[in-house]
């Protein structure tokens, strides 16, 4: 009887697997196939072996786009986490007893609810060097006499993207961090305070250890999302990486190869190279974040092996 019902179970979960296979698994393998072909988006793909990979790996623009992506992601993730940690410090400080956490949680998260396209359109207007509101305000207030080239100098454009990304995502990190700090007993913070610990000692010894797993989670998901940075840099300028290729991220590169130049094989190969890079970096992050538990695991295994060997010797 039990066996019969267990078969029905497969039927119940089948729809998910069908959808997953059709919309996730199939594109993954089809992209892999395309990465060995020359394909303009119609007709039959022409198999050309590893040539698309060799062309992408030799393309300085690909590496430049990777470096742009890392720079924008790096600045964003540091600012995002730093801002979220500062806010967590303020909101979890038992001395300040800041009220309105629920309200601020919503306010900080709001930018994340606005569509990236809308955010990009707004900031493109705000940051325009010649006609933008920001330069106008700064000029009217007497802070600048010459317009700042927010979107026409590559470095400033990249930092603008990082700033926009930080603004969009710090609320998300804050909510995750504050949730894990709130899981720690308040008694611990009070006991530390009674014992004479200052704010930074509390941060180092209680707050950070309590949010460490979440920081690693934010780092890894941020990395996966960050290396796929696309919407804001694509929409903020011309969609082709202007200024001076500064906003050409890896996914903007891939998108343009496929949809602007109809070079689907090149785009597919670049996608798989990006996939490999993300996998390697994610593994490195995981190892770095779990060093102590990995060390403990290997120490335990070594201990077990030694005890086994000791047992045999006896």
């Amino acid at each position, binding site marked *: 009887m039990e066996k019969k019902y267990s078969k029905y179970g497969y039927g119940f979960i089948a729809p998910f697997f069908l959808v997953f296979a059709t919309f996730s698994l199939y594109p993954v393998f089809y992209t892999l196939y395309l990465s060995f072909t*020359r394909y*303009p*988006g*119609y*007709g039959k793909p022409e198999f050309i072996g590893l*040539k698309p990979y060799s*062309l*992408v790996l*030799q*393309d*300085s*623009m690909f590496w430049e786009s990777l470096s742009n992506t890392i720079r924008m992601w790096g600045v964003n993730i540091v600012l995002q986490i730093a801002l979220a940690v500062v806010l967590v410090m303020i909101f979890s400080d038992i001395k300040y007893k800041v009220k309105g956490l629920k309200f601020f949680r919503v306010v900080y998260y709001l930018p994340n609810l606005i569509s990236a396209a809308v955010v990009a359109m707004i900031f493109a*207007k705000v940051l325009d*060097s*010649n*006609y933008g509101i920001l*330069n*106008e305000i700064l*000029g009217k207030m007497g802070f600048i006499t*010459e*317009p700042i*080239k927010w979107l*026409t100098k590559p470095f400033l454009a990249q930092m603008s993207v990082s700033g926009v990304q930080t603004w969009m995502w710090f609320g998300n990190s804050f909510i995750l961090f504050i949730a894990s700090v709130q899981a720690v007993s308040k008694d611990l913070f009070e006991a530390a305070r009674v014992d004479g610990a200052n704010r930074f000692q509390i941060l180092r010894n209680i707050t950070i250890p309590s949010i460490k797993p979440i920081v690693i989670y934010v780092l890894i998901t941020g990395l996966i999302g960050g290396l796929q940075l696309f919407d804001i840099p694509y929409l903020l300028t*011309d969609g*082709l*990486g*202007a*200024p*001076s*290729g500064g906003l050409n991220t890896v996914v903007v590169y891939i998108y343009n*190869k*496929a*949809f*602007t*130049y*109809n*070079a689907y094989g*090149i785009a597919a190969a670049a996608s798989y190279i990006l996939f490999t890079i993300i996998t390697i970096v994610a593994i490195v992050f995981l190892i770095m974040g779990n060093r102590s538990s990995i060390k403990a695991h290997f120490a335990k295994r070594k201990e077990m092996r030694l005890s086994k060997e000791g047992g045999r010797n006896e």
Partner: protein
Amino acid sequence: MKKILSFILVLGFVFLLAGCNSTPDKLVIWTFTTDLEVAGDITNFEDQYTAEGKMYEGMEVEVIVVETATYMQTILPVLESGVGAPDVLTGELDMIQQFNEAGYLADLEALMEADVDVDVAIEKADYQDYIWQSGENADGNLTALSWQVTPGAIFFKVDLAEEVWGDQAGFPTDPTATDYNALVSTWVGNNKFDSLASLLAAQIEVKAFDSSYRLFSDDQAVRHFAAGTDSPAKWLDSDGKINPAKITEQIPYINLVKDMYGETIEDSLTANAGEWSGEWFAGMGEKITSLDDDWKVMAYSMPTWGITYVIEPSMERVDADGDACTLPETATDADKLACTYKGNWGMATGPNSYFWGGTYLAIREDSKAQEVAFAFIKSMLFDKDRLAERQAEDGDTYSMSSVMDPAIASYEGRPSLGGMNHLEIFYAEAAKIDLSNVTLYDRRLSTLLGNHINLYKTGDYDTLAATLTGFYADVETTLNEIYQEGLPTS
């Protein structure tokens, strides 16, 4: 359980039969423009063919509009798989070329020949050569056709031109003359817009006359003149590789863009207001306002549809006393009469003829509803009475002489252009367009080169040679199949 299984099997069988039904009950049209619906083409077709008592009574017409930017990436997989594919599809010229390359389009000429109401020879003679030519596939069979021609021109503000160049020899002297805008247009076209070198000199003169005046809003305005000739070289040579002659042809244009560039508006020969930005539109009115200054832009490169849909809505308007006025959002005809165009625009041809856009109609090769699809094409392309009415309504330039000749002859002139007969100019320009040099790679190569020109103008490349070398490296990666060694770098 068995009953449930039987029910599912029967249901599946019914669906299968429904799928096998050979009589189509729906005509599916995919388009990147809302024009077909806005201009009443769908309603007209329904009235003629699917209304009660008509040939295809009760047939549903489904129109799927996909925005231009994502049209190709949406329609190509659909055409490739055939699932949910359209019976009738629209496309711009380069899209049609890709559809033809992939063999998606039906032989329109064969369908025309099979129809007693359509005479291929008469239609071919009636249509502009370039429109007919552009709809032919590699075998020379017609697969797509457009009701419109879309040649471009340079539209400019006559009053600004008069301020800047009014004292130069030959500039028309009587602003009260009825054909003043036309006379100024001819003079400006012949003296200021006739070559790439003239365009550069004109920009310098405009800026020198008044530091807040600019000829163009941004350098995109000159991209249509990259060839600088009505007989441009092909992007690909006879071996299907990138053509060195085309590169050499582009060098004056590359240098022009470099010369026009300035990081600030003060340093630039343009107003640094990118195409389609709010400031770009604002420049068509009185002025653009930036941090400290106001800027006046004199000219815009636009095709036929640009005057109606882009420039006129942004133009300055005046009331009966000649004072500036604005139309209310929902303007009546009376409002439009009380607040009319200032009439201060002219139009001139640039260094070479060009076209931009255009909507072609085609039928999918594997469509099950080809007969109905052809009826739709007939209603759109071969019903000349209806086309004449449509042209009178939208004022656009059409591709058949049977419609345009009477329209041009009876045209009273465009008020926004001070009464100029823009239809006549556009129709004459269309006749100069030669598509024998167009290749499948044109748009892609122009975009790719454009990226490197941008790097050159902003100083990322020090020299023209470095710019071209960078472009070739990009072609080698992206479009490896057309790359060849030994391309010119100067």
